[in-house]
């Protein structure tokens, strides 16, 4: 049996019998194939060289050096739905900076709260005391019950008295990572070593960030990671402006246990984000009086959930923590709905990043809860103004996700820090950032903490109903990224270049009942 196969496959038996007539046909097919292959390659690579040629020419023609913001995101591939939003955010922010605009904010103003930007009330209310009551007598405005000096800022975009950064035009040097880690590494090297960008803003998935962080550290490149992630990056060159686990998992779990009951079943994607977030859920649920009645990790390639659904039904939880990632896992929601599983769900990733409530047919995401720091539906005046500006520049866009908004305010933050530093020299700008900054973002007031290089965010609880409309039912005005502080990370005193995991925190699992 095996003989037949190998004899047919062996190419060399043919060559021994090559005659001139066989060569004639060979040459014809050879020419045909060469034409096909050559045409294919020339058609695609010709323009490549022409493009590169034009780019270098135009750079040399510049009179003053532009400030280069290096930007790598996945504009194609599986993660394109997130990457394109971030690209648009960067483009919007740079346009505003070049037009002489900036966001409100300053260094060393305390952890963001309503009064962080120090708004002065027009007419403060008059308080009179009758007996033991504090009554508000005067009528100064709408919300006078608890926020005495609060006034909602209607727009956060103000003049910067500068064109670009320090008079220099800001240029976006962007590249497509194509959801491929090797390409990311090569692009990061190109941006740092060849294009010599002044700041690098890159990365959606943690894997992408970790792929380029060694290169960033070798070159001491100033690097912003603007996504929500599992937390723990303590790197003197890296500033993480997205929310981390303690800012999202704990408020979510607290709300769900209070509202629906203590029994939680966790289903998580079987990779870093899913496992770490599930570990956080498990560690903190006993502190709010809940318990995990089941925990399951699902490989990223699985898209068939009937057994999972059966197991959830057998465990009878009050609510389900769904930490599912990737296009295969999205099938859980319609399958669960079709199987009649109507438990409330909670997550830290859905809606705010991949706008599943717009992409999936209702009512798959009904009763989904998520503690977010930003979603396009946030109803404040400053956010409405921001969304309006965005839609004017990108009318075709379907959604503005949290990582897009983070990218937007991060680039404005970089501009402010560089202006304060008076230079784009990376070491000086890092020192300027390490003053600690308050910045008024569309989500609210954000504070960049000096020692941990992470941000304190306002957090709101978003609920999705059967029609996939979003409402916000609770808010936590400021939640700090306190975990790295508890670990003793102070990158100013002791520079580090690693990512901490819960294993290195002796307090993490202290009260978990296994």
């Amino acid at each position: 049996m095996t003989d037949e196969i190998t004899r047919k496959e062996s190419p060399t038996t043919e060559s021994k019998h090559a005659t001139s007539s066989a060569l004639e046909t060979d040459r014809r097919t050879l020419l045909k194939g060469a034409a096909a292959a050559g045409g294919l390659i020339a058609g695609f690579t010709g323009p490549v060289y022409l493009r590169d040629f034009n780019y270098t020419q135009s750079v040399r023609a510049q009179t003053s050096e532009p400030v280069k913001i290096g930007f790598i995101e996945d504009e194609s591939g599986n993660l394109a739905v997130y990457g394109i939003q971030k690209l648009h955010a960067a483009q919007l922010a740079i346009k505003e900076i070049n037009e002489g605009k900036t966001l409100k904010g300053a260094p060393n103003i305390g952890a963001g709260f309503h009064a962080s930007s120090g708004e002065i009330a027009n007419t403060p209310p008059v308080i009179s005391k009758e007996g033991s009551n504090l009554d508000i007598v005067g009528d100064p405005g709408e919300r006078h019950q608890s926020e005495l000096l609060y006034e909602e800022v209607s727009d956060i975009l103000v003049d910067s008295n500068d064109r670009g950064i320090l008079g220099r035009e800001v240029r976006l040097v962007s590249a497509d990572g194509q959801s491929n880690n090797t390409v990311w590494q090569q692009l990061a090297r190109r941006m740092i070593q060849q294009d010599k960008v002044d700041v690098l803003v890159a990365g959606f998935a943690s894997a992408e960030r970790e792929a380029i962080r060694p290169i960033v550290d070798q070159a001491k490149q100033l690097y912003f990671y603007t996504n929500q992630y599992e937390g723990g990056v303590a790197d003197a060159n890296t500033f993480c402006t997205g929310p981390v686990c303690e800012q999202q998992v704990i408020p979510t779990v607290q709300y769900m246990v209070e509202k629906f009951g203590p029994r939680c079943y966790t289903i998580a994607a079987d990779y870093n984000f899913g496992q770490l977030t599930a570990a956080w859920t498990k560690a903190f649920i006993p502190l709010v009086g809940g318990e995990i009645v089941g925990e399951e990790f699902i490989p990223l390639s699985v898209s068939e959930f009937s057994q999972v659904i059966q197991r959830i039904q057998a465990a009878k939880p009050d609510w389900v923590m769904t930490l599912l990632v990737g296009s295969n896992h999205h099938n859980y929601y319609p399958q669960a709905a079709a199987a009649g599983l109507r438990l409330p769900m909670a997550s830290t990733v859905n809606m705010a990043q991949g706008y599943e409530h717009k992409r999936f047919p209702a009512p798959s995401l009904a009763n989904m809860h998520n503690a977010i720091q930003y979603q396009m539906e946030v109803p404040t005046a400053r956010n409405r103004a921001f969304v309006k500006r965005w839609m004017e520049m990108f009318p075709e866009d379907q959604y503005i996700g949290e990582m897009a908004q983070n990218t937007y305010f991060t680039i404005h933050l970089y501009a402010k820090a560089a202006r304060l530093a008076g230079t784009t020299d990376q070491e000086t700008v890092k020192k300027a950032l390490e003053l600690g900054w308050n910045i008024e973002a569309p989500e609210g007031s954000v504070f960049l903490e000096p020692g941990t290089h992470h941000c304190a965010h306002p957090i709101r609880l978003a609920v999705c109903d059967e029609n996939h409309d979003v409402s916000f039912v609770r808010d936590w005005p400021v939640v700090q990224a306190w975990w790295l502080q508890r670990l003793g990370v102070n990158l100013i005193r002791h520079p580090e270049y690693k990512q901490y995991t819960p294993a290195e925190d002796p307090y993490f699992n202290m009260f978990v009942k296994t």
Partner: protein
Amino acid sequence: MEGVAVLFSVVYQLATNASFLLLAGLGLIVILGMMNIINLAHGELMMLGAYTATILYHRGVPFPLTVVAAFVVVALAGAVLERLIVRRFYGERLGALVVTWGISLVLSQGTLMLLGPFMPSIPIPSGSVSIGQYSFSVYWLILTAVTALLIVALGLLYNWTTIGLYARATMQKPDIARALGVNTDRIYLLTFSLGAGLAGLSGALLAPTVSIAPFMGQQFIAPAFITVVVGGATNVIAGALGASALLSFVKTPVGFLLGAFLGNVALLFAALIIIRLMPDGISATFQRWQDRRSRLA
């Protein structure tokens, strides 16, 4: 009542796992099992079927019609591929393997470039039914029935029709079939188209249960190949049936007790062990056992 619910739940899980394996392997049963072409583009053919069904559904075509349309469209695509590329590799298994891999790359990456990374999926039809504390998706029950029907139809086609006779003759002894007047070229074309069409059909049927993305085909390749290889080439249809049942019996309890990942691992190990013990597949061993019995009788 509780016991009945649990029993039904167990049967339901076994049946859905087996149906998934069979559906994934349906097109490959014909192409690999009968034509001996290792078609690594099988997953992408299923993807094409799913995309066809989804695009048509979103234009208002009712779901059952989209499934039929998917069958036709992918069968035509298969015919084109066969004429242009695959026919030069009959008899060269490794060559067919490599060239179909190239086809799969072009199809999946091309879909990504043309249609983008996501497409809204078809909502699962038919809702759910509950027995005791468990609820079951009616669609999966329907799918199980449809899969059984398809297998029976395929078996009838190959064993009871003239075309089926010609096809079997061509597969077993092409020279003699040609000498007897069978147009073997057309048989090859029809068989490959049928295999491709069946892959598209399965893709369309499974489309409501998975998300529609250009690389969705990859999740079907391993189960399809395992089912067909374990089934063996001697009697492809019966072999695939037996293989899917056997593998489902391994995967379901492990998956239920230990989680989805270990369920897949158990599936792979079971396949490895079966191939090691019965290299020509279950159907060959069964055939040999039957021959021995008839000889002894």
